[in-house]
């Protein structure tokens, strides 16, 4: 599965998820109130099955007065990596 297909699937299963530009890995933006449901779907949907949280970090943007949480997910079943800032 290449990164375009992966992003297509993610966008289809989670409303509100948008593709993130300027990233070397497939990445999606998710609004904060959809975070939990998005995470559940990403883990449970069998074509994705992102079961491992590789790392979790945050970026602060003082100009925009906001924080961005970054979750790096990995699927040990399929071997693909998704970076999903929100």
């Amino acid at each position: 599965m290449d990164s375009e297909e992966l992003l297509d699937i993610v966008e289809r299963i989670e409303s509100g998820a948008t593709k993130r530009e300027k990233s070397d890995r497939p990445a999606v933006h998710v609004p904060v109130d959809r975070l939990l449901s998005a995470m559940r779907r990403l883990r449970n949907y069998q074509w994705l099955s992102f079961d491992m949280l590789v790392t979790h970090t945050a970026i602060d943007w003082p100009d925009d007065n906001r924080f961005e949480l970054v979750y790096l997910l990995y699927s040990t079943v399929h071997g693909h990596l998704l970076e999903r800032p929100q």
Partner: protein
Amino acid sequence: MTVTIRTLNELLQPSHLPAHPLATQEYFVNMGPQHPISHGSLRLVLRLDGETVKEVIPVPGFVHRGVEKMCESLTPRQIVPYTDRLDYLSAFMNNWAITRVVETAAGIESNERIETIRTLMSELQRIQSHALWWGVTGMDLGAFTAFLYGFREREVISEIFEETVGARLTMNYIQPGGVMYDIHPNFVKRVKDVMAYMKPIIDEYDTLLSGNVILQERCRNIGILSPEKAIALGCTGPVLRASGVPYDLRKMENYGVYNKVDFNVVVGAVGDCWDRYYVRMQEMRESIRIVEQLIDSIPEGPTMTLRYNLPIEMPEGTYYSQVETARGVFGAFLVAEGKSEKPYPLHFRSPNYNNLWSVTALAPGWRVADIIAILSSLDLVIPDIDR
């Protein structure tokens, strides 16, 4: 969504008081920060009932130097030596992780020779690191002789590094755009000699310690980590592979020249301390195989494709790269603003941090002495946890 946060003070309350004057009460024992098992400064608070461990609360942070924050005021070339000082037993691989992320971001090409040298150095260091771990595990479990043997082999490989790199521990060798120096003229011959010497040595390790009754008794079926739990906790490296998950970035991520060599990913069957022990023993053998396949055919070419005095320009965006160190996945997450050479935030994903928290799942129910075996089999390097 609710999140409960428990402070350490709350955690340090016994869950029950004795109902009967003769009944036992729960009590707490501190392991560390100064403790021979911690190999650094790690504090573990054990909640004990008699000698049975009820809960383990790791308290890291005794070596927290704020490396990630420091990196925000450093250029990529200046960051490289700081990665040595995180997991100092995998210094080459840590250099490689930050180098890879910078190379991806700035679009720097490297050639076959550079990648081969990087792979060779990393595999040599994996053998060195595992040899050291083997010695220290022996010492932790009461066999001091193993320590002397483990360090004998570490010294032999250290001399190879010293000849080419000039350092024994903190390498600062793999740089964005290549490697710091070309390999020493003696390198190929010495590596061949050492590999020929190392092969029977691993068997010697097996005869010396692996079959030992005490080691078997203290490791077999102790601290079983199920594959689901290991994945959920984010464990990587030999800890995850010992639980039976064939997850090795050298196969998955396709970096270096790992796709050209033939090697196996070693997995365990049960996920106990013994599996974690033996996975590392087998990994040493696999690493020797990788080195032997590469050492005869190091291609010609320049060892640095980038001029030192030019700044590395990274366009705006987020970048993540990871490599497999001796302890698991070491990743670097970099956000470039596109304005200067310096990264805006830089986050290191260190394998030891996730491996440490597996002790909270492993330890309950075992005795205090088993905690030593469990911690030893996790092979923690504390500065990598604290950063």
